């Protein structure tokens, strides 16, 4: 997936940077190990922080751009940390025919991000996937673990609202259970 130059991923946390350095150092300096290194980074960090490109490039003696070129070729690699509610839009054949791209567009507009990105509050991330195996329900969106079939553009807003309400409810309950808990906004 490409990293759209109009949006940058959030700054990488120091712990993530440290893990990153540790992973890369474990590998031999062979160009053939580029994809395995990237896979190991993503397995540990859940995405490829931007620092991965120059770091891996230096380790293997290749340009950072070459690392990015390879990473962006594969849909498997992501450049944004996953959101708490990952949203996957199916664009397999059946969903494509049933205008899954319009569903994707609606999510993009409502969330203000593009596919492959994560909202600034890290609540939602948006991704496109190939057939998820329930073509009869096309077009399909998967929010978190839940499959939503027969998606319609008009359902997008309601879905996001539901998640927001559920979150606020959970916050209120948590606050009620432990009244002395600090400001719920910094959880």
């Amino acid at each position, binding site marked *: *997936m*490409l*990293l*759209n*130059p*109009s949006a*940058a991923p959030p700054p990488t946390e120091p712990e993530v940077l440290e893990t990153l350095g540790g992973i890369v150092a474990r590998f031999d300096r062979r160009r053939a190990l580029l994809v395995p290194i990237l896979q190991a980074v993503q397995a540990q960090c859940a995405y490829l922080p*931007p*620092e991965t*490109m*120059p770091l891996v*490039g230096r380790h293997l003696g*290749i*340009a*950072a*751009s*070459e*690392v*990015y*070129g390879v990473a*962006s*070729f594969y849909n498997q690699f992501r450049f944004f940390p996953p959101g708490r509610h990952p949203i996957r839009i199916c664009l397999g054949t059946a969903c494509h025919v049933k205008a899954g791209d319009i569903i994707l567009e609606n999510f993009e507009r409502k969330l203000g991000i*593009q596919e492959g990105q994560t909202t600034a509050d890290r609540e939602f991330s948006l991704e496109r996937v190939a057939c998820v195996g329930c073509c009869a329900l096309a077009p399909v969106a998967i929010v978190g673990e839940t499959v939503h079939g027969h998606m319609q553009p008009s359902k997008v807003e309601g879905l996001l609202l539901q998640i927001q309400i559920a979150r606020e409810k959970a916050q209120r309950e948590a606050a009620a259970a432990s009244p002395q808990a600090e400001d719920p906004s910094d959880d």
Partner: protein
Amino acid sequence: MIEIRVDGQPIAVCPGANLLEACLAAGIYIPHLCHLPGLPAAASCRLCFVALGDRPDPVPACTVAVQPGLEVLTDTPAVRRLQRSALELLLSAHTIDCRRCPANRRCALQRIARFLKVPLKRPDLPPLDPPGGPPGTGGELVVDPSHCVLCGRCVRTCRRLHGHSRLTFAGRGQRTVVTDWVETGPAIRCTDCGACIEVCPVGAIRLAPGANDPES
């Protein structure tokens, strides 16, 4: 020197010379975008097709080393059909706005379209979204993805001049773009030589507004 025949006309060439270069030097025009003299053929633009005497199907001229007695035809129906569809595919992903394009009048696509009599605009086809959003920001150079034909001349020239290429292809398929990586994101901040700007056949790579001219 050996002799080959191109469209029935004898031309003298050095043995082993590149067929595309030999024809161009002899004044026989063959449409081409991606070839760089002196570098191995990338044959990525699929425009320089010719028919060779003994082969049933046309081949890209930039991949052929001449041999004595070679018979070349540059204008068979099969050749033109392949060239036209290659050009149409390139144009289908190219924003046609020649009047506002900095490469207007020196753009290879314009010349080839005129030569092959292929219309630049196809009102019957809906325009494609340019891949990867707007041209890269935050750098000294921008590659306009809606104009780039992905011939790779800039990438290969950069590699030839600097041993490794800072420019690279990123993404894939319809969304492939040419870019470099600067610290934390895709951008091109190199203005060391400006060679990539010069070799671009369609003017897709250019100085970002306000960047320093490498020449000055």
